[in-house]
């Protein structure tokens, strides 16, 4: 009597490693009459009813396997893979197949079962390969897109660096130009002072010319001081009037103390920022008043005080007040009709250039009050 594996090897039932188990089952079923005669149930340690292997009956497989006690079936095992794993090692010739009445139907070898699993694994591998391929394609696409983005970003960064370098270069050139312009301006002012002094020097017999030259050089100095304020402010549209007036005062006092005792100067300057159109004339007015007081109000090292304040008045104007407790002036003193240029300059700059109103008082020393509107001109830079 042929063994089941002989029947298998003779090709009666073609179940091999390349076949799916499901594909082999109809073939087994078709040949059951042939194999009825070779019922050798006892040769197989594992016998499975055919119907249990058909789709939709997985639980029956377990029931029969449990009943046959051929395999240590774990409750909850449901797949062909797991059955295959259980069959491995415990059934050398394969698995016997029976019909519903327990008659032998055929045999499925261990190799066939493993082959089916292999094919399934291969199918899964192919599926996984497909998925992996898709993933790899997606990753490659994303990688290419990222590479392109990186190249684009690198190009943009390089362009931005170039633009930034150009801006920095322009800024350096601008700073150098401003520095050079200020230097040239100071040099030019120094040359003008030189020409005035040389002219006076060339006419030593004229005391009036010498005095005029000295006063003119002082005014040139005042222009230079205001100029220095602009240079130091760093923002030509919004110059700190407080810093500017303090700077002018410091320098004038430095010169005054170099030639003798100077009075105390008390500054109460509200910190405001003005356009250069306001700071320049205001600085000149302040410089003129302070230089005038230092020169005339405190003769022969006389001690005293000079008080200056600059405050906002309302939203649209400010007031500069200037007073000293020096020797004062005669009662009939008319500030605006003096032969000396200084006070006329204050009047002219205050009224015509700043658009303000200048008042002078001669009670307990000279005092000035300049009220001027805040500039309405747009910033120039």
């Amino acid at each position: 009597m042929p063994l089941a594996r002989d029947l298998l090897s003779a090709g009666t039932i073609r179940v091999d490693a390349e076949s799916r188990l499901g594909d082999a089952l109809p073939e087994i079923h078709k040949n059951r009459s042939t194999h009825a005669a070779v019922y050798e149930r006892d040769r197989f340690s594992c016998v499975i009813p055919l119907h249990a292997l058909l789709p939709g009956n997985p639980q029956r497989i377990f029931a029969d396997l449990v009943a046959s006690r051929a395999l240590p079936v774990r409750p909850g095992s449901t797949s062909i893979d797991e059955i295959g794993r259980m069959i491995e090692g415990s059934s050398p010739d394969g698995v016997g197949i029976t019909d519903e009445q327990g008659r032998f139907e055929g045999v499925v070898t261990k190799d066939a079962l493993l082959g089916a699993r292999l094919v399934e694994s291969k199918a899964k591998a192919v599926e996984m390969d497909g998925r992996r391929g898709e993933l790899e394609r997606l990753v490659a696409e994303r990688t290419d897109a990222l590479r392109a983005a990186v190249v684009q970003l690198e190009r943009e960064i390089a362009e931005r660096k170039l633009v930034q370098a150009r801006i920095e270069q322009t800024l350096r050139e601008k700073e150098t130009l401003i520095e050079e312009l200020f230097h040239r301006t100071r040099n030019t002012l120094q040359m003008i002072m030189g020409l005035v002094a040389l002219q006076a020097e060339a006419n030593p017999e004229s005391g009036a010319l010498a005095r005029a030259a000295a006063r003119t050089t002082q005014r040139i100095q005042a222009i230079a001081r205001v100029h220095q304020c602009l240079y130091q402010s760093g923002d030509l549209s919004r110059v700190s009037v407080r810093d500017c007036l303090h700077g002018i005062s410091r320098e004038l006092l430095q010169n005054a103390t170099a030639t003798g005792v100077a009075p105390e100067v008390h500054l109460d300057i509200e910190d405001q920022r003005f356009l250069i159109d306001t700071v320049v004339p205001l600085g000149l007015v302040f410089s003129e008043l302070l230089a005038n007081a230092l020169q005339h109000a405190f003769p022969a090292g006389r001690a005293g005080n000079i008080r200056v304040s600059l405050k906002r008045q309302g939203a649209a104007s400010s007031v500069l007040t200037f007073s000293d407790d020096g020797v004062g002036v005669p009662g009939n003193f008319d500030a605006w009709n003096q032969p000396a240029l200084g006070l006329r300059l204050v009047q002219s700059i205050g009224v015509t250039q700043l658009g303000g109103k200048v008042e002078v008082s001669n009670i307990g020393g000279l005092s000035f009050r300049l009220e001027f509107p805040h500039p309405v001109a747009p910033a120039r830079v």
Partner: protein
Amino acid sequence: MDISRILLVEDEAIIAMLYHVQLRHLGHEVWRHVTTGEEAVDLAERERPDLVLVDIHLAGKMDGIEAAQKISAMAGAPVPIIFISGYSSQEVRGRAARLQPVAFLEKPVSLEMLKGVLERVVGNPKPASAPNA
């Protein structure tokens, strides 16, 4: 301190003439006047000045600070230096301050400014170290 040998280093002719006048008004005279830093260093090597009045921006390759540095490094008692400049940036001031000059005068320089500084030099047996006028 005797400052009869005042070395003036200034490349602007009119400004140099002004310093001549100002110094004369203050009772001093310019001993030598040169227009470049190189000339100033050469001269100082041959004949030591009592005081150097030097502009920072000069004709030639050497600026006033570099010239003053070379003069200060020469053997012997240090020579008082007065810088005069239209440049007042922090960078320029910083370079100048390292030489501990008597003063750093910003243009335009008035008679009063010069007088105050010279009085300090004359009144001191040794060069002062204040960086500013």
